Structure formats: structure tokens, C-alpha cells
């Protein structure tokens, strides 16, 4: 009996993680990492992600991360071998004593590191998506590696040629590509932002931050967060669902300043509390707006992508896709 017309409703996310809970995981992993001289890192990473996912609730159910330490370890080894090989090549070039060979080796080293990034983004997107679920439904990234590569190379070159100005358009193109090729069961995504709008946000933000001696930076960050989040749209059975990220500049101020104070006055020991505070800020302020029906999502076909190398590669540079 669908007599009542579907009205726009909002659905909130909540982050239920606690600093004291995460601190146990954080320090346990730190200890194991030290004892194993860093080899425990893959398992630590998986436990961290599992905790953050499981602490995230939407409409009464939690998210789940299905990745395993073994998968991440295999990726970690691949990335490690790659780096060692590149370093050895660089060292070989540098010790030759020949200026040209050294220059070529250097160019090859940095060139390879940059040229691998698009592959890593592709791999990371596929791995993370296939390992993430909610109500038993998995995400799936089905972008094409070649297309993404082309997009990145062109974007990168144009960014250099325009002294960085094109980076706004490049970032938006990248977001558009990734969201367009992302599915959650039969729910699809899109990013409706525009490169020019992002450019204006950066331009205005940097200019005003400068003349207000930094005070405007909190509004700048707020605009940037809202641009990145609120431009994402979901489609369930062709019905549009919007994302809302309702924050004030004061919220950003509180997050940033208290986090900084926590870190400085505890010499970093408050890191786990800072991590949960930060995630809480993003997740608790996030909502979906529209006729979302959590019972009517169909599982998509399997993408059992178990190669975590791309994800590990991005970790090396502290880049996180999500």
C-alpha cells in the first residue's frame, strides 16, 4: 500500500569507535610492529581497517572489511621488492661516476615511482571495494586500467605545463572516473563536481587565508570537504540520493585545534584518540538524502580481487583513496 508519497528523508551515518578501544589495538599493533621490525605491518593495517569499518554504522548495521593480513602481506612484499630493485638501480647509476648515467638513473627512479601511481590507484580501488561490505552487499570497482592510466598521464602532464593550475580539473576528472565505475550491489555512484568550482575554492581559499593570516583556513577546509563529499551522488533504481556533509567552520576549527593540542601535549601518545575523533567528525556529519531503501539492494557479480599491492603502494606515500 504505497499510498503515502515517498518523501525526502535523511539517513545518518554514525561512528561508534572509541579512543580507548582503538588505543588497545593501536598500541598492541605498535608493539608487534617493533618486535617484528615492521613485518607485522600488514596484519596491523588489516586490524585497523576492520575496526574502523566495524565501528561505522548506517541504518542500524555496520560496515565490514574482509581483507586479510596474508593478502596485504603479499602486496607489501611486491611493493618492497619493487622499491629495492629501483633503489639498487639508482645506486648502480650513482656509483658509476658518469654524470649522464647518474642522471638517467635518477630520472628512471623518480619516473617509475610516479608512473606506477595510476596502477596503484586502480589496484587499491579494486581491492578496497571488493573487500568492503554492508548488510552483506559488497562494493565493486570496475574501472578500466588503461583508461585510468591515460587520464592520469594527461592530467599529470597538463598540471606540470600549467604550473599546477590544471590540478583542480585533474582531481575532479579522477574522482568522476572512480565514482562512475563504483557500484554497491546495484547502487551506482557519480561525482557531479566541476574542475572550475574546485579551482575557485582553492584560489579564494589560498588568497583569503593569506590576507586573514590563516583564520580563513577553517572555511577553506570546510568548503573543500563539502566539495569532495557533497558532489557524490548515489542512484538506486534510477532514483537520485544526495550526500550531505553539514559542518560549520567552527567544527573544523575544533577538530584541528584540539587534535593539534592533543598531539603536542602528549608527545603523540594521543594518536588513537585523534584518529577516532577525526573519523567521528567525518562519519557523524555524513548523511544520505533521498528515497534510500536498504532492503532492496541486490548483490553484484563477484570481483574477487585479492591483490593488495596497489593499496600498499599508496600507503608508502601516505595516500588514502577513501
Amino acid at each position, binding site marked *: 500500500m504505497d499510498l503515502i508519497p515517498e518523501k525526502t528523508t535523511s539517513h545518518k551515518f554514525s561512528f561508534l569507535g572509541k579512543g580507548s578501544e582503538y588505543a588497545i589495538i593501536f598500541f598492541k599493533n605498535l608493539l608487534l610492529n*617493533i618486535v617484528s621490525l615492521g613485518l607485522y605491518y600488514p596484519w596491523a593495517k588489516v586490524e585497523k581497517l576492520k575496526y574502523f569499518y566495524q565501528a561505522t554504522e548506517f541504518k542500524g548495521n555496520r560496515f565490514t572489511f574482509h581483507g586479510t593480513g596474508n593478502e596485504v602481506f603479499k602486496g607489501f612484499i611486491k611493493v618492497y621488492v619493487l622499491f629495492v630493485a629501483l633503489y639498487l638501480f639508482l645506486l648502480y647509476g650513482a656509483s658509476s661516476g658518469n654524470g649522464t648515467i647518474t642522471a638517467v638513473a635518477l630520472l628512471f627512479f623518480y619516473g617509475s615511482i610516479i608512473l606506477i601511481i595510476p596502477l596503484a590507484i586502480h589496484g587499491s580501488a579494486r581491492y578496497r571495494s571488493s573487500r568492503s561490505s*554492508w548488510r552483506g552487499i559488497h562494493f565493486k570497482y570496475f574501472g578500466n586500467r588503461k583508461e585510468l592510466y591515460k587520464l592520469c598521464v594527461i592530467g599529470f602532464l597538463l598540471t606540470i605545463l600549467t604550473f599546477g593550475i590544471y590540478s583542480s580539473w585533474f582531481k575532479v576528472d579522477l574522482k568522476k572516473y572512480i565514482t562512475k565505475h563504483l557500484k554497491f550491489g546495484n547502487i551506482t555512484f557519480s561525482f557531479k563536481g566541476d574542475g572550475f568550482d574546485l579551482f575557485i575554492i582553492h584560489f579564494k581559499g589560498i588568497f583569503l587565508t593569506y590576507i586573514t593570516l590563516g583564520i580563513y583556513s577553517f572555511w577553506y577546509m570546510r568548503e573543500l570537504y563539502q566539495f569532495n563529499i557533497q558532489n557524490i551522488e548515489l542512484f538506486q533504481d534510477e532514483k537520485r540520493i544526495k550526500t550531505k556533509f553539514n559542518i560549520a567552520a567552527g567544527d573544523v576549527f575544533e577538530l584541528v585545534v584540539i587534535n593539534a593540542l592533543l598531539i603536542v601535549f602528549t608527545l603523540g601518545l594521543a594518536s588513537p584518540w585523534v584518529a577516532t575523533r577525526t573519523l567521528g567528525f567525518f562519519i557523524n556529519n555524513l548523511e544520505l538524502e533521498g528515497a534510500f531503501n536498504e532492503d532492496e539492494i541486490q548483490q553484484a557479480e563477484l570481483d574477487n580481487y585479492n591483490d593488495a599491492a596497489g593499496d600498499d603502494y599508496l600507503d608508502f606515500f601516505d595516500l588514502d583513496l577513501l
Partner: protein
Amino acid sequence: MRTFIVTYFDGKSSKSSEATLVVFPQYWKISMDNTSPFSNSIRWDVTNIKSSKVYTKNIKSFSYGEYPFQYIECEDDLLIPEIEKHPEQKKLHSKVDTFLHQFKLKSIALLMLLIVGFSAGMYFYVIPNVAEKFAQNVNSKYVKNFGDFVFNTIKPELEINEERSKILQEFANQLDLKAEYPLDLYVVDEDAINAFAISGGKIVVYSGLLDKLTEANQLAALLGHEVSHINKRHVLKNVSRDLSGYIFLSVVFGDINGVTSVFIENAHLFKRMSYSRDLEQEADQGGLELLYANKVNPEGMIALFQVLKEETESEDFESLKYISSHPLINERITYTKEQIKEKANTFIENKKLNTVFAELQKK
């Protein structure tokens, strides 16, 4: 038999069903409630159950089988103790986690204590010793290659005085310095009051220092000090200790955040300087022994320090003691004097040495 209320998903769609769970040793039985869209009762064999393996209060989740996974969420904290009753289900929970989460802040304190204790042991004891052993045991060929590499890198910046270098080389040849490698000596035209040694047998003396010396035994003391650095592989020891300690600290604290890293890096610098002072003292002693072995007047070492003292007087503050790479000059004079006192003094005038020294100072 205890029953738990769970939410069940079949992995094909996002439809949910309220259900009850009973845990048996070999399997779990999930019974749907009346309104469920799924069949009445499902059996999960323990071997195919996967736990989310992460502790969050009021939520446990498990998945089952191959993709698309069946999945349940349970809010009852008593489910874990129930699973713990069955040894067959060991993989579904972690005793360590249950223990740690039971004591919260106490566990955090315990973990921090273990981290600090273990890291301190590694950093202050294990790593420096292993690094030094390593430096001690590296094949001399590699040490020489390393030294040559370093020297070739800095060589373009040094204004080497070929003529004086040759005489300095001859001066060194008059002494038995017991060097592990053939020594290569260089005089560099620069006003600095300094000299340094590089692994594998290279010694550089700045003309600024050379011109201040008035006696052959001062120069012999200087070479003795630098050769001791080389013989004891001080550069290599310093580099391997410094690097391994630094890498260890980055692994431990790099993950936390920037502020901690800066703090730790500075502490590391202090420690490094303290080690460097130890090495200098060792080289002073080694140099003194070489003077005795060559029957050169050990007072040359004191006389050398006096030259350094005059030149550095203005910048030698007591407060710099802990951040300097070298011991304070007065301390060096004191400990050297004490050592000289302890030993019988049997030096003889070395005429040839004096002649070469005079020649060196003429140029």
C-alpha cells in the same frame, strides 16, 4: 542452551532477517523468525565461519562460506564467552584481545610500558652492539671502497696542495702507525683549524691547522689521533650505528606522527653526539699509544690540544658540552695528562722527523 539474537543477511540481497543463534561445538544453528524471507533454519559449519576478529563493544560480526558471504551481526557481548567454551572454535576469537579489552586503560598502560621497555633495550643495547660488530667485521676491501667513494665525492671541493701533501706523506712514513690500510695524506689549503680521517686510510689536514703547529711531535700526535679513527673503523661504526638506530626509531615512531618524530630525532642527535665524543676520546688514547710506540714525546698531544684550545677558546662554552661532537678541550687535556703521568716516559729525539717537519713548515 543459550540463544542469541542476531541479524542475518544471505549475501544475495540486502534484505535482513531477525534470527536466533545457538552455538554447538561443530556448527552454529541460525533460526529465522516468522516474518523472515529466508528458509527457517540454517546450519553454519565451524570450519567455514569467519570472525571479523576485531573487538568493538556491543557488536560482533561473522561471515560464512564463499562469496557472496552470508553474514550475521550480534549485539550480545556474551556471545564471545559462549564461543570460548568450545575448543573447536578457537580461531573465532582471540584470548589476548579479550584479555586486553577487559582492562582498558590498564592494558593501554601495560602495552605502552612494553613498547618503551623493548624499544629502549633495542635502541640502547642490541642495535648499537650489532651495528658495531657489523662495522668491525666488514671485509677491509669494502671499507676501502666505501672510503674511496666518500673521498671522491668531496674531493672536488678540496683545494689539495700536492707539494705539501707529498711531504706530509713522507712525515707519516717516518712513523710506524700500524695502519690497517696504506695511508694517503692530503694537505688542503684552507684556514680551518681542522683535520679528518676517512675510512680506508685517507687523512686530510687543513693548512690552517698545520701552520699553527710548531713541533714535530704535535703533528705526530695529530696523525696518531686520525690513524686511530681509521684503525678502529670509527667512521663506519658511527655511520652504521647512526643509520640502524635511526631506521629503528623511524619504524617505531614514524607511524605515530610528525611531532613525535621531531622529538625523537632530536633525542637521537644527542645520543649520536655523545657517541661521537666517546670515539674522539678513544682516538685520543689510541693516538697517545702510537706516540709511545714510536718513542715520540707524548707531550706533543698536550701541545696539540693547547693549539686547539687557543683557537677555539672563544666558542668553548661549558653549556655546549652535551651537544658537541668533541669532548671539551680542557677535559681532553686533563685525561691525557693523567695517562701520561701513569706511564714511564722513554722518548728519543727523532732527527729525521724534525727535518721533514721543518721542510713542511717552510712551504
